């Protein structure tokens, strides 16, 4: 029933008109040509307390976890306790964590309220123009990216397998992909699976795209 979600390949087939598809293809080819050089990825964002961070170039940590969340996605919210446990546990081993809200028009007040409601004590960023989303290529909330101090993406995907598909929640998670990746990074061995398929809500497309497409 949920074959689409069971596929390992996380690239969903584009669902657009053919003309749009062609256009997008050109844009993609063009932009990937531009990105052939190593990305600069010094994305600079200010957290809810006013502190500036460059999470993709975080020299203060062995690696940095970015938790991409949508405040009104129930699957994203259900992970709050596990996110807090992971952030606290790995902070002791010099791994930094950021909450990254990917809702395009989330105000500072709403972000603060959500972070307080769910008890997040790690720095909270709002990726309003989807810079971190683009650089890490995440598509789902909740999804995580683990980046090295040099900005290399070491792991991207789900936190664990609590959700087998939309509407199919396991009794409890049986595979802890993010923890496994972090443990491997700390031990200096290759991450067992560098990308996994996250289950949750799609990260919205920037509003400008929508206006472009409105007939």
């Amino acid at each position: 029933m949920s074959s689409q979600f069971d596929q390992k390949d996380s690239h969903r087939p584009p669902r657009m008109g053919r003309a749009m598809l062609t256009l997008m293809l050109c844009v993609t080819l063009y932009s990937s040509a531009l990105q052939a050089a190593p990305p600069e990825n010094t994305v600079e964002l200010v957290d809810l307390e006013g502190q500036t961070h460059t999470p993709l170039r975080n020299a203060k940590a062995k690696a940095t976890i970015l938790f991409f969340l949508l405040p009104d996605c129930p699957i994203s919210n259900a992970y709050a306790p596990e996110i807090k446990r992971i952030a606290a546990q790995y902070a002791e081993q010099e791994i930094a964590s950021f909450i990254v809200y990917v809702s395009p028009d989330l105000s500072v007040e709403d972000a603060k309220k959500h972070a307080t409601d769910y008890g997040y004590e790690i720095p909270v960023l709002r990726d309003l123009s989807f810079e971190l989303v683009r650089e890490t290529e995440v598509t789902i909330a909740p999804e995580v990216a683990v980046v090295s101090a040099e900005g290399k993406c070491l792991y991207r995907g789900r936190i664990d397998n609590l959700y087998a598909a939309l509407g199919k929640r396991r009794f409890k998670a049986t595979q802890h992909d993010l923890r496994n990746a972090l443990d491997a990074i700390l031990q200096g061995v290759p991450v067992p699976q560098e990308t996994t398929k996250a289950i949750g809500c799609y990260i919205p497309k920037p509003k400008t795209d929508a206006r472009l497409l409105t007939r």
Partner: protein
Amino acid sequence: MLSFRCQLVFVAVILTWWSHTPSTFADVNFTKEIAPIIFENCATCHRPGEAAPFPLLTYADVQERGDLIADVVKQRLMPPWKAEPADYPFLYERRLSKDQIELITNWVDQGMPEGNAADLPALPEFASGWTLGEPDLVVSMKQPYRVPADGPDIYRNFTIPLDLTEEHFIAAIAFRPSARSVVHHSLFFFDATGRGRELEAEDDEPGFKGGMGAMMKLRGSPVPPQAFDDPETAPKRSPLGKRATPGAPAFGALGGWALGAQPHLLPNGLAYRVPAGSDLILATHFHPSGKAEEETSTVGIYFAKKPSNRRFMPIQLPPAFGAFKGIDIPPGEKEYVIEDTFVLPVDVEAFGVGAHAHYLGKSMTLTATLPDGTRRTILSIPDWDFAWQEQYRFAEFAKLPKGTRLHSRITYDNSKDNPRNPSDPPARVHFGEESTDEMGSISLMTLAADESELPLLQSAYRTHFRSALLKSPLSKLFQGRLEAE
């Protein structure tokens, strides 16, 4: 090398294919085609103050979630409605047609154009507060129940005294959770036995634990349920000290509420008969939301204007939630089946149907073979989900003539491939009330078409119940007692 003409034909064919394939529903716009579907089927819950996570009231709301909406409607996860269309249509069915689903997915494929603003229909008028009007009686949980931030789902039952000094007839119950993000569904029961109050003392938390297993305790299973006027098991006194109505059951179901459902009066002037001194029991399913919450449910009760003289007869197949079936599901088993059959001794009118199993439940079917050999499907849930325990009601009475053979079939998947399997690796599972145990049955809510024939129906079902018990592996334990009767 192809001739020029050939090439031309080839190009024409390609162009025709190109322009036709994706255009079953060409040029779908939000305002004209999509908004009516969303407003009608999604916005009831997807609006501020309701249970669903985000509003779907404007173009921007829907456009932002377009991909997700396309996925969940295609997979029929939303709107939540697990039953397939069957031969007796359901009331208040929340199910999109194939055409509606195709419209939505095509609209998303086409980039979600907004369309002409003038075409946008008005939002429906959503009733706020009590949708059935001011209730006759409003009661709340005595204490808030704390739902933790995470962990497995919780099944908890709350006893609420109604302080009724005489028999009442309930036509509808409206349920209002206080913490909407954690309350998934609640099933309602009346309990004039006082046992619910006793169970409240089991632990320090408000309410008492358990799902249907706890209900079985209240009902006094595995002896025949009191719903069948068995003088031996009917309570002599209600908790308020009033004598229970002779012949009236002291424990029974009163319907339920699930996310997305609106309260409705029972059809045809029917009403649940509730004895004096009954407590209301809310059997509530919570799912932790990531944030600790406190729930204090409020319930509005609507009494029938006049007593209903028609008594309900739930036909549960297999009886006692499958307690006598010797359920024993080996680890790895992908298709474990239990079945039960009951022949109606009188003409019956059914007004609703519901199913129950735990996490291993895979599919549910209830069929009726009429005396002329016609086979009808009453309930078919091909992909059972423990989380959506809907109480389905028929649009009109399902009229089942005398001699109709009811057949229930429930399957279980105890393999690793069932993501809901509570055990990893899969473990052997037996009948039991814990959610890691299994049970299973389908209940048809019926009336004797001719009220005077109700005793025949009751007695036939009681016989069926006893024979199920005698055939069960447990029967040796009960043999002596049954023979003594």
